[in-house]
């Protein structure tokens, strides 16, 4: 009976639709719930201390009711900056190598190894940082340098964001049509000139969004940072006359602040940690939204080709 079969079919179809819709909506709901509760818990802190005060005050001393998170914003900002400065050139080098230079067999060995980096748990990166990097950095003879600090943390973070950036940038480079490459070579450009002047600019927006994705990842990293950054709640400052020595300073990230203190915090202190979370949430949201915007621009740019 064809009629009956088709109603059964319809019913299955409708059920499927509902199930899929529920699972899609529930992830939206979860994001909103988390956002809502974080915000709600942070209200006492924002009320009592004032958002502007929190954002601009350097001292975080819960015992004395000082809840400034500027030092942590600086810590997160600097370690992210450091990781981008180290990680982005590495990742882009990696992407260009994989997309344009490496013979196939070599790419097939290198690419999975790079992807494997993404699968290593944060805590293992932290261990590696503590055991290998920190002693190395401690070798830099500057008074006050303990090895724990922004430099070690930046290097660890650089390696952690490398696979994301490298693989997104590689696919951006791969999607550049071969005809550009041939056109450039036919004009007498060398392979390097072509990669530099044609392929990389053509993949520019994809590469940019790769970097921003990496940024988002860097801002959110927690445990590995706690293990190597030293966690002192101080405004990072240069240890010597050389401004670069700021990277030898200990620091604390926004994420680390929450993770380290939440287990014993109560009252306003606890609320202030939620407020830290809200700030972090906003930062990452800004970064991700701009990443999505860039990605969209790059896809539309690709269509126009």
């Amino acid at each position, binding site marked *: 009976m064809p009629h009956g079969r088709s109603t059964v079919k319809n019913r299955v179809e409708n059920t499927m639709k509902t199930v899929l819709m529920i699972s899609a909506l529930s992830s939206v709901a979860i994001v909103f719930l988390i956002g809502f509760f974080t915000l709600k818990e942070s209200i006492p802190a924002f009320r009592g201390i004032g958002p502007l005060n929190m954002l601009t005050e350097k001292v975080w001393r819960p015992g004395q009711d000082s809840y400034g998170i500027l030092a942590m914003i600086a810590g997160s900002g600097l370690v992210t900056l450091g990781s981008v400065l180290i990680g982005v050139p590495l990742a882009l080098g990696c992407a260009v190598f994989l997309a344009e230079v490496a013979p196939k067999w070599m790419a097939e060995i290198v690419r999975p190894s790079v992807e494997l980096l993404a699968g290593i748990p944060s805590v293992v990166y932290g261990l590696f940082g503590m055991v290998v990097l920190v002693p190395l950095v401690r070798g830099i003879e500057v008074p006050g340098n303990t090895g724990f600090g922004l430099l070690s943390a930046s290097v660890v973070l650089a390696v952690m964001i490398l696979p994301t950036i490298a693989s997104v940038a590689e696919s951006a480079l791969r999607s550049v*049509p071969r*005809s*550009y490459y*041939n*056109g*450039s*070579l*036919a*004009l*007498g*450009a*060398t392979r390097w*000139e072509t990669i530099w*002047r*044609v392929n990389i*600019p*053509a993949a520019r927006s994809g590469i940019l969004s790769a970097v921003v994705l990496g940024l988002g990842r860097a801002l959110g990293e927690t445990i590995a940072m706690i293990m190597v950054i030293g966690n002192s709640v101080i405004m990072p400052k240069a240890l010597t006359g050389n401004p670069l020595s700021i990277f030898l300073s200990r620091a604390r990230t926004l994420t680390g602040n929450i993770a380290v203190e939440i287990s014993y915090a109560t009252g306003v202190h606890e609320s202030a940690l939620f407020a830290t979370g809200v700030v972090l949430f906003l930062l990452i949201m800004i970064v991700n939204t701009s990443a999505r915007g860039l990605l969209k621009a790059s896809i539309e*740019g690709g269509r*126009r*080709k």
Partner: protein
Amino acid sequence: MEQVRLTTRDYSLFYGEFRALNRISLSIPANRITAFIGPSGCGKSTLLRSFNRMNELIPGVRTEGTVLLDEGDIFREDVVNLRKRVGMVFQRPNPFPKTIYDNVTYGPRVHGMKNRSKLAAIAEESLTRAALWDEVKDQLHKSAMALSGGQQQRLCIARAIAVSPEVILMDEPASALDPVATIKIEELMNSLKEKYTIVIVTHNMQQAARVSDFTAFLLTDENRAGNMVEFGPTNRIFTSPSDRRTEDYITGRFG
């Protein structure tokens, strides 16, 4: 006697083990338009790409015999320099995703020119020669991707002209274009031959007859290797070919 710009002698090309071109010998006259015609797969593009050594980008390619540009062995010449002297326009317009201005000045810049006013002069001159200047002079700093297909192809011709080549190779330059744009490209070729030697691959018999001064007819033999059957003034090839197979092809009896 015509002055010869490009010569091949007993030139063969192999893709791995496969012989795609079999002992081709021909002389391409300077400041003329020479057309390569023949059925699909007979090696027209392969032969064309030999003159600027673009075949070398394909792994496993090997050649035998000689190719000369103005008496000089092209395989001894620095490949960058060779490609400066022998420009190429592809079947599908392939402007870079840059501005019109950056497309035209790409070649000169790659070859080290930095002087802004010189670059601007080259851009204007090349676009004018490519019959595109009037259409784009007010939008030089807009993306080349926004141009029509025909305009893009003329931009690619301008881009090739900008490095002052002696030869311009064109592989079915109008096959992706509509009839009006095609006529434009054909007219353009005619005005360009004063200054450049043009070699064009085309599937379109009328086009070959219309624009070219000389025609080479290629055909595959029983091993699928491309052979040159006949070469001569286009007039003669089309009115009184000396080879039966040429006549058959031109009159549409096969291919």
